[in-house]
């Protein structure tokens, strides 16, 4: 296989056509492939075999981290390091820490969700071979694309192209790898 090939890109005209093709891809022996769509498509996660995204857990971790940290900070600041007596109230009591800790929990969880999403998607990424492909620009518009990577064991330009055409692709093209 030539080193210059990133993969093969098959274009579909509707989400329904893409979903049917993805279903067939799912039972084929290809492994390194992905769908590219202008919006999330209902049912595609299942076809692709994705399990629940880890983003929720990252957000939970971020939120819990911030919550406990703020409770600890308040204990440290107002009880341990520089006690300030206000209105005869106890120097530290868990309920009184709730509001700031809760608010900062939201902050922590939000950062967790965003950074978790970036991390799992490997973003920001300023270079991607597909983004050099002129035809790929219509993916953000109204086309639905399946790309099979050249690093797939089964990949063969002619065979794979034939297979993709048999899935009902409107157009199949080679994507060159960019240095």
């Amino acid at each position, binding site marked *: 296989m030539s080193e210059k090939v990133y993969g093969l890109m098959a274009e579909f005209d509707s989400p329904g056509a893409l979903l*049917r093709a993805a279903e067939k891809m799912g039972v084929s022996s290809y492994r390194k492939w992905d769908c590219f769509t202008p919006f999330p*498509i*209902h049912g595609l996660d299942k076809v*692709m075999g994705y399990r629940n995204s880890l983003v929720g857990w990252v957000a939970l971790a971020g939120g819990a981290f911030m919550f406990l940290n703020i409770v600890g900070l308040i204990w440290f600041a107002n009880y341990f390091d520089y006690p300030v007596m206000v209105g005869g109230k106890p120097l530290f009591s868990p309920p009184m820490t709730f509001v*700031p800790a809760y608010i900062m929990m*939201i902050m922590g969880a939000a*950062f967790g969700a965003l950074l978790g999403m970036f991390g799992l998607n490997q973003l920001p*990424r300023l270079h991607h071979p597909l983004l050099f492909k002129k035809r790929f620009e219509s993916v953000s518009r109204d086309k639905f694309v399946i790309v099979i990577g050249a690093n797939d064991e089964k990949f063969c330009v002619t065979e794979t192209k034939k297979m993709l055409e048999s899935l009902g692709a409107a157009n199949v093209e080679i994507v060159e790898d960019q240095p």
Partner: protein
Amino acid sequence: MSEIANIEELKKLAPPAELRRAPVVEGNQGLGWLTDKLSAFAEAKVPLWWKIAFVPAAFAATVIFPICLFYQVFTGVGVWGNNHPDMWGWDIVNFIWWVGVAHAGTLISAMLFLTRQHWRTTIGRMAEAMTVFSVAMAGLYPAIHVGRAWFDWFMFPIPNSNGLWPQFKSPLMWDVFAVNTYLMVSSLFWFMGMIPDFAVLRDRSTTRVRKTIFSFLAMGWTGSAWQWHHYEKAYVVLCGLCTLLVFTVSSIVGLDFCTAQLAGWHATIFPLYFVIGAVFCGFGMMLVLLTSLRKLCHLENIITKSHIDKVAKLCLVSGLIINYIYLMEIFIAWYSGDPYERWVFGHRFFGHTYMVFGWMLIGINVCVTQLLWFKKIRSNLVALFIIGVLINIGMWSERFVIVVGSLYQDYLPANWGTYHPTTWDVGLYIGTLGAFFMLYLLFVKFLPMIAISEVKGATPQADPHHPLGGALKGDH
């Protein structure tokens, strides 16, 4: 198109017209048309109306605003009308007002997403932008209200050479956390929602400069199933968190008041009161922005009358809750038997100094809101625009009644005084309004003001199980 099921057959199965849901986008056009339509405004030449609106807003934001800000910071809070016993004046009134404007934005973008209201896709982004810019304006007021703005960093728990820490038991301290968190989280949410749309603008860009800018902003978004999978999860999580913030931030602002032992403030209803008031005020602002932008940006097919009707209904609901709270407040003041409470509430409407604001509150928030019961009014955009402006004025006067109305005559008659805003109060408010509208106009012109990918995702063409989305006969 042979694979598409017979449309005529489907039409027979469809429910009667009055039971059918209004389509999210009118005209039933394709995805390509929608992409062109939604990105058209950001790509077209700057229209004349935009320039006409931008110049005064930019003047207020870049001339009036800094002058009033610097003069106040260099001289002191004394340049405002704030003085004993009215230590809180326009600065706090405007702070609450701006926080309020923000809340409806989050409610529309986050809470309506969680309840799967597809119509919110068309107005969600505009609502989020409204939130981000108005929280920024709100956050400014307490920061300069403290008097010595260069000591603001004392409010953050930073180890410093004085060995001092913030006093975490105070609701005013909680405000610092709440407003900052609100600003951060709503900005994150806003930005994350725009990433796929930046990719749309990147792919459509014709000049090198645009391509470079939007490539950076889109962060290499390709729209792969893997990316959407995590993106959707992150979006739901952020929506949930933003919904929590809708209820938290204004509650904490309400706590600033109700922990004080002042007649008219010391009421348990205050957190809820402030949340609903905020949402109501924000829906008013949303009506103003939607009705005008729909017309000016030619988005009649996207922001349909049905969407605006729904916003008006939400406005009516929040208005009715607010009316109930007004009634409850007055009832509890009477029922408590506390002479000071009774006196304060009586004075709001029949006192001598500020009763005009009390009646504005009744006239607008109670009476004008009832107009939204009528379908004729809800479908009249000019009427909605005027009602939106009036609601903002009404809610502003409500905050004035609460803040100044309780402060200027408290328990001790020897302590009484009056409050009059100065030029600098007015100037700063005009400055923040200018800054808000300047930022909003820039957003509308240069960023994707409508969530392109979300709107496309809400059309039947995007549903793989719909004939228009390419489903075959028998596909489910």
